[in-house]
Structure formats: structure tokens, C-alpha cells
């Protein structure tokens, strides 16, 4: 994958973080930050300003939609991809309305997740890619 930026992964479930982060490493992403909930994610975002955020929807304390709103308030240009389990049209529409770049089903096979992520990166970072 043609991406040398950093990614912050936010999910309360350890196995999802393990799976997605291994997949990201496998795809050649070297800078990965992990947060286990919304407020942790906001702290980490302020500190590291990752290029892309992969954000779980269902989390205790501060859910994905709330976190998305807060992230967009911090930086309206931050690129956020929602991680969903069952595609819930209403939540997806809400996230897109709040400025999420895409959504990815985290129960999809690795190849599909990789493809969706690559598409998002192509769409959101086309002017930032280094010239070959």
C-alpha cells in the first residue's frame, strides 16, 4: 500500500486492535498508535496527530460518533475511517454527515479491509503522495 503516514487505531476490543494492527503492518504501515476508548484517542491524537484514524463505533464511555465529533472539532481535516461490525445504515449516515471519510466492516476478510483502506487513502491523500 502506497502510504507512509501514521495511523491511529481506536477500538475497545484487544483482539480487533491486534488483528487490524497486524494487517496494517503487513500492508507496510510502520507508524501505528493504539487507543482503547474515545477519550484516550483524543489525548493521543493531540500528542501524535496521526494522518489517519480508524475508529470503532461501539465503545463504552465515549462512543465512536462522539469521538468523531470531538476529533473533527480539534481538526476539521483529520481523516477518519469508521470501523463497524454490522453495517448500520443510520450510524454510517451519521458518521458520513459528521465528516467520516469511509467505513470498514471489521468482520470482513483481511483482503477486503486492506482494499477499503487503500481506496480511502487514494481518495484522501492524492495530493500528498510523494512524487516518484
Amino acid at each position, binding site marked *: 500500500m502506497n502510504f507512509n503516514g501514521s495511523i491511529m487505531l481506536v477500538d475497545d*476490543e484487544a483482539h480487533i486492535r491486534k488483528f487490524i494492527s497486524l494487517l496494517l503492518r503487513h500492508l507496510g504501515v510502520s507508524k501505528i498508535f493504539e487507543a482503547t476508548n474515545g477519550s484516550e484517542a483524543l489525548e493521543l491524537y493531540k500528542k501524535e496527530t496521526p494522518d489517519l484514524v480508524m475508529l470503532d463505533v461501539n465503545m463504552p464511555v465515549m462512543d465512536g460518533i462522539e469521538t468523531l465529533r470531538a476529533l473533527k472539532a480539534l481538526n476539521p481535516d483529520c481523516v477518519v475511517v469508521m470501523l463497524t*461490525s*454490522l453495517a448500520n445504515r443510520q450510524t454510517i449516515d451519521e458518521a458520513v454527515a459528521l465528516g467520516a471519510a469511509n467505513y470498514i466492516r471489521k*468482520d470482513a476478510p483481511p483482503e477486503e479491509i486492506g482494499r477499503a483502506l487503500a481506496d480511502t487513502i487514494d481518495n484522501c491523500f492524492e495530493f500528498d503522495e510523494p512524487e516518484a
Partner: protein
Amino acid sequence: MDEPLINASIDLKGRRILAVDDDRINLRIIGGILRHEGYEISEASSGEQALELYASFQPNLVLLDVMMPGIDGFTTCRTLKKTYGDKCAPVIFVTAKSEADDVVMGFDAGGVDYLTKPFRPKEVVARIRTHLSNQQLVEQQKHLVTQLSKANADKDRFLGMCAHDLRNPLSSIRGLAELMAEDAIGELTGEQKEIVQTIHGASQSMLQLVNELLDVATIEAGHLKLDKKPTSLSEIVERSVHLSNLEAAKKNTRIEMVKANGSPLVDIDRNKMRQVADNIISNAVKYSPKGSIITVMFLSDETTAGFAVRDSGPGIPESERHLLFKDFGRLSAKPTGGEKSTGLGLAICRKIVEAHGGTIGVQNLPERGAEFVVSLPLPK
């Protein structure tokens, strides 16, 4: 006379009967007969009093004299029916003579039966027993239906929650195993790779089962939402054939597609109909002997469009036909390449196709194999 007049299996002792008559003697006679049967009796001497008593006594049955001063029996009955609706106790009219007009008016007013004076005790007891039993049976049925539908809804909710909570960890297990098999954390030895592939295969089939259970739960709970758009059915079927080709190639099976003459647009939910096509075509691959040919055809007439899939499997035994489109309806046929079956796939297909107003059916071919046909209504 110590034994009740009629024996019956349903225990009706303690049931409440409201007897209404302006004639005290009649009330005393009927009261005597009924108390002897073990019923609890409350007496009213007018329609007005009956309406008042009904509320506090909550009878299971009302014996109502027709001719009374003040409001008559018919009016009293209509008032009761109007006030209590479906929950109103059955009303039996009491008339001095069985005049045809009285009887008809009584039924019109909402009565269930009538008794004539002078009373024949056996008749009184038998009729009252019949109506009390009927009423009790109806109540039991209603109660049972309520309980069952609640239990069914609980089951679906439970299944849904269960499947939902199993899904994420399972997909992580599958994904991690797949990445490991691809040497994402370094090169594995032959045996390590084999183990990781086993984990991947097992979690993959569990995930499929969980997904199908979740589909069933969603559909059963009435939450199947179709996102219908005019879509080319042949495009969907061609995609499924393309996907199944990979599995087919492993078994040296060939899928032949008879191209459609034109491709009518059908109002369907693309993803759901993909699921149907995937299922039927992959089933054909699953149950056909290695090295056989599967034929996929498109069918259309003025009002419907559909597709047919012919396999060379063992066909559907007549004795198992009724199981085919049912939940967990696994038949005796075994997949020919060691594939897995949950017994839910075709049940889900049927539910999806029917939700589209279409039909799904199967027939055995004269030589060998079965033909599955999906037919969908064309937009008018």
C-alpha cells in the same frame, strides 16, 4: 343428589355466574342448580343492577332474563358487549318461551345461547358447562399464543445477541490466522502453517454459521429490510458464477452459463439477491460429483424474471423434499468435496426471495441432478 349432574375433565368449580331475573323464584331455582355444581353465583333482579354487579363480580358467564322491567335483557346485553368488548363474558338468555323472534334477537344482541323456562336442570347444567369450557379453552389458547410468541421473540433476540457477540472475535481469529499463514509475522514452518490454516478454516466456517444464524434471527424478528433498486439480475448471477468458479475448479467442475437475451431490470436488494445466487450456485458445486457440469440459465416472461441452476448431484429425495427450504433442514446428500453445510442457506434464500414477492423451487431432472429455479416479479 350428591354427584354433579355431568362429569367432565375441565374443572369449572368456582367459576362465577351472574344470574339476572326479576322473578325471585326463578333466581332461587337456578341458583340452587348452579351452586350444587360448585359455581359461585351472584344474583341481580334487574338489568341496571346487573350492569352494576358485573363490574365488581367479574363473572365468567351471564344468565340473562329477557323480559324485565326497566332495561330489558337485550339492551343489557348490548350495553355489556359495548362496555367490555371481546373480554365480555358469554351471555345466555333466559326466555319464558322459545319464541323464534326472541331467539334471533338474542343472538343479534350478542348472546351465545338461550334457555327456556321452566328449566330442565340437566339442560341448564350442560349448556352452561359447554360455554364455560369453550371460554376457558379460548382463554388458554390466547394465553398460550401470547406466551409462545414472547418465547419466540426472546429466542430470536437471544440468537441475535449471541451471534453478534461471537462474530467480532471470530473474524479476528480468522483474520489473524490468515495473516499468519501469509507470513505476516515471519516465516512459518510447514507444520505451523498447516495448523494456522486449520484455525483459519475452522473459524471461517464458524463465522459463516454465525452469520447465517444472525440472518435467520433478523428475518424471523421481522427486521429484514430490503434496499430495493432496479438491478440487472444477470449481472448478479454472473458475479456469483465468477465467485463459485474458484471452488468449482478445485473439483474439476465446470459452470456453464447460458447467456441471457437482454437483461431485464428487476426491483431487488442487490446484496440480498447476491446471497441467494451465491448460495444456490455454490450448493450446485458442493453437491455435484467432481468433474461434472453445472448449467446456469436465465428465464423471463412478461411478468417475471429469474434464473435456473442445474446440477448433477443426487437430486432431492421425495421423502426429504419438505425439509429443503426449512431452517436446519439438512438432507442426506453430502457435499462431494468435504465442504461444510449449516442447513440454513436455502431457508434464508427462500425468506429473501419471498420478501421480494418471488418464488424459489426445485425439481429433479429426469436423468440425474436437480434444478433450482428462482423467479422474481418484474416491475409493473
